[in-house]
């Protein structure tokens, strides 16, 4: 396809395809995206109209199962005014200079792309109409379109878009901000239930994923790294491994000591991944683990307990006068909570295929964050960014693991040792647990003051997590804008840090997935002490009158109390909260509300506790993610997936433990995820509001764990202050 270069301000150009179709390219100069607090970046996307009037739309973002590959082209097709059945979606390459942001993270895609993608479609349509006006000699204002055809009502003329391909190619690009976009009431695609564009191919076993990449002459690689993250390579029986059948290359990868880019390791290359992995069984490596072998689960708990006893190292938020407010309170509630380290467990293990050619490298990768990977590869190999070509593949689960680019660097470093030979690096499941970027562990001491009327008046949270030099490690920090701190006159958040050798990272709804449990369970305790239930306590804090509380940082969205109230009231009605006292013994309903990623979610969980066993028969979830659900078919799945993931974090027994610096879990038996037999009925409702649409991959998760433990409390009177839930906590 022909491609023109981009001007600084951005423009829209159309150029003829060799086959006679027309290609539109968009680099829209865009203002702030509609959602508050979201990054706004210039975007490009492709629309091609083929001679038979079929439309090919470029899906430009990483597809991890969140639906971006379907949803973004829906937005383009809507404003282009074509029939969805006539659209084919193609995955674009990863290239920020053409496509703008292509990452899948922070539930940002919907908010960021809602306007630009529609403008991309509207601009293409405007150019086609302009071409038709010229050809027919009529004013463009007299033309309309429907389903891929241009209409001139006065004369009754009509022709398919493809007729005007050549003419459209020579049109000047419209200024995107001047384009008239459809009124939502005229939407024919957006808001309808659209099947994922790859669904048929998935059900036929087509090679879509990174693991399926196959290049001529390709070798397969395994990379052995130290069981204790950060251990340095000393020596290994490399010659012995080299002599094994089917082994092509064995070499040492010298790391830079950074898990984010490259750790020391031994790479084994073969024509068969299985052979390489088998050879690994005979590999004997001596590692120097002196710097990292002291870290253990027990050690963390001890250090964290001591830190809580000692008092905070740093104050993150200090609002009003917490000390005085607590002193003057009628009642004080104090509790300590603990949250375990978790792994991501994407079902497709990390992998990347790379072909190094001396001064350039071509990469095929299932990455959520291609540009970060590009920068890391450039630094590790000493290449210019332009010398790195990245092809996107479909991604077998992200959950934040693939925001890191370590596996891309590892593959590139291995490929650089065998120039001209494509190499696919694939992790074993054990590698996944060795080289994850874990959800950080956290320990909290919380305190609340309650006034004579039972109202929450002051709140303090001293949390301990991993980090160094007053900087919490990735994904471990607590934002100052959390509920209830943002709603109270007196609130303080304090921090202390402990050391670890484990790299931490972003797990679906980072920070919030951990805080949702701690805060909602503690607030349930506070509500009980004040003689009310948790939703009543929250509604009281929110107040009757809707107001907007600014986010606590540039990346934090503002908090709108009216939207919070809307979803809380909705879920209470859905779950018959008022009638919960009628439940049989051993059953209870628990409530949770959380605001994250610009989305508002309230959840009620019903738990049945029998002996030491917790079952969840039903969950209700109500969310407000703005005015429009782009693809309800996918949206419901996102919420259900988040609900089940949240339940699994508490109920499935997930916990990463460590001894001598090494993670003790190696597969799904010891770090289990929810299975079919534990899945509840989940009722999902969206509460539309007059706000720009925002993302759905994450915000439904954080309230789930809190609601679950609150349900367990309602059923048993037992307060769960440490995850995962264990049988001994219940009997």
């Amino acid at each position, binding site marked *: 396809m022909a491609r023109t270069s981009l001007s600084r301000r951005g423009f829209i150009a159309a150029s003829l395809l060799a086959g006679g179709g027309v290609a539109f390219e968009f680099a829209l100069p865009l203002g702030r995206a509609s959602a508050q607090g979201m990054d706004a970046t210039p975007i490009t996307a492709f629309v091609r109209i083929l001679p038979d009037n079929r439309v090919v739309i470029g899906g430009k973002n990483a597809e991890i199962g969140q639906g971006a590959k379907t949803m973004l082209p829906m937005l383009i097709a809507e404003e282009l005014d074509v029939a969805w059945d006539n659209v084919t979606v193609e995955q674009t390459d990863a290239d920020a200079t053409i496509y703008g942001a292509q990452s899948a993270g922070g539930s940002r895609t919907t908010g960021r792309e809602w306007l630009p993608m529609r403008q991309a479609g509207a601009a293409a349509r405007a150019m086609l109409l302009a071409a038709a006006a010229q050809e027919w000699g009529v004013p463009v204002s007299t033309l309309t379109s429907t389903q891929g055809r241009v209409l001139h009502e006065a004369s009754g003329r009509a022709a398919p878009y493809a007729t005007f391909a050549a003419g459209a190619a020579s049109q000047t690009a419209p200024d995107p901000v001047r384009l008239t976009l459809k009124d939502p009431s005229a939407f024919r695609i957006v808001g309808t239930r659209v099947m994922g564009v790859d669904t048929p191919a998935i059900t036929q076993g087509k090679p879509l994923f990174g*693991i399926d990449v196959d290049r001529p002459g390709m070798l397969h690689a395994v990379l052995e790294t130290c069981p204790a993250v950060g251990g340095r390579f000393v020596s290994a029986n490399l010659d012995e491994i080299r002599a094994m059948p089917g082994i092509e290359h064995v070499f040492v990868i010298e790391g830079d000591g950074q898990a984010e880019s490259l750790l020391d390791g031994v790479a084994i290359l073969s024509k068969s991944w299985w052979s390489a992995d088998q050879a690994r069984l005979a590999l004997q490596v001596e590692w120097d683990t002196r710097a990292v072998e002291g870290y253990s689960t027990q050690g963390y708990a001890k250090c964290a307990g001591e830190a809580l006893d000692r008092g905070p190292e740093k104050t993150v938020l200090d609002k009003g006068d917490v000390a005085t407010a607590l002193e003057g309170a009628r009642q004080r509630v104090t509790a300590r909570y603990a949250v375990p380290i978790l792994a991501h467990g994407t079902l497709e293990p990390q992998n990347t295929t790379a072909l190094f050619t001396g001064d350039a490298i071509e990469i095929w990768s299932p990455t959520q964050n291609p540009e970060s990977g590009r920068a890391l590869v450039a630094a590790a190999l000493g290449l210019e960014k332009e010398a790195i070509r990245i092809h996107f593949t479909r991604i077998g689960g992200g959950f934040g693991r693939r925001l890191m680019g370590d596996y891309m660097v590892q593959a590139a470093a291995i490929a650089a040792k065998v120039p001209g030979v494509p190499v696919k690096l694939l992790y074993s499941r054990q590698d996944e647990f060795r080289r994850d970027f874990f959800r950080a562990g956290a320990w909290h001491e919380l305190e609340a003051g309650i006034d004579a009327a039972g109202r929450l008046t002051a709140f303090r949270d001293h949390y301990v997590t991993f980090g160094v030099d007053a900087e919490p490690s990735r994904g471990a920090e607590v934002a100052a804008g959390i509920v209830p701190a943002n709603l109270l006159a007196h609130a303080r958040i304090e921090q202390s840090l402990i050391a670890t050798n484990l790299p931490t990272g972003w797990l679906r709804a980072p920070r919030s997935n951990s805080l949702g449990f701690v805060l909602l369970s503690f607030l349930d305790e506070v509500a009980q002490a004040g003689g009310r239930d948790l939703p009543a306590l929250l509604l009281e804090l929110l107040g009757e009158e809707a107001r907007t509380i600014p986010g606590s940082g540039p990346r934090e969205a503002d908090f709108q109390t009216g939207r919070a109230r809307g979803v809380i009231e909705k879920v209470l009605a859905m779950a018959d909260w008022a009638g919960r006292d009628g439940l049989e013994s051993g059953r209870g309903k628990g409530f949770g509300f959380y605001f994250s990623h610009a989305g508002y979610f309230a959840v009620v969980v019903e738990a049945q506790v029998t002996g030491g066993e917790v079952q969840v028969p039903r969950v209700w979830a109500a969310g407000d993610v703005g005015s429009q659900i782009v693809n309800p078919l996918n949206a419901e799945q996102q919420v259900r997936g988040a609900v089940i993931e949240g339940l699994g974090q508490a109920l499935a027994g997930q916990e990463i433990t460590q001894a001598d610096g090494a993670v003790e879990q190696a597969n799904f038996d010891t770090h289990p995820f929810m299975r*079919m037999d534990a899945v509840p009925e989940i009722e999902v409702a969206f509460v539309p509001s007059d706000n720009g649409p925002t993302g759905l991959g994450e915000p439904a998760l954080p309230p789930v764990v809190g609601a679950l433990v609150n349900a367990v409390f309602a059923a048993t009177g037992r307060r769960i202050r440490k995850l995962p839930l264990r049988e001994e906590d219940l009997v």
Partner: protein
Amino acid sequence: MAIRFTINGDETTLDVDPAKPLLWTLREDIGLPGTKFGCGAGLCGACTVHVDGVATRSCITPVGLIEGQSVTTIEAAGADPVGHHVVAAWCALDVPQCGYCQAGQIMNATALLHEVPEPSDADIDAAMAGNLCRCASYTRIRAAIKDAAQKAKKA
């Protein structure tokens, strides 16, 4: 060592280490990458295929053991009279999220429906609990199995 078996209806003879798991034989030697690697230890079900009609974890099945047997993979699932309805139901309900587990889910569900044409929820739970969906598309997997059962019954 030469091993003879049938793959998606075609007789094949392969010279391959009999200890090599069927999963990697399919992916690397036969060129059928639809069958997925998830755990390599029989714990996730992503690698499920049919061996003589029985749902089998191909990651822990040495290819030497299937000498003379008949293997069906996701690539041929739609050609099976029941599998055809399963695949159609998977599309109609848009079951996949990331999609990575779905080859295994479809193969396992098809084997279930061959054995129990009208499964109860308990039957589905028991048969499908070995198939992990990290994205948790379980609600739709359950619904799609029931949908396929209905369609297969009418057919």
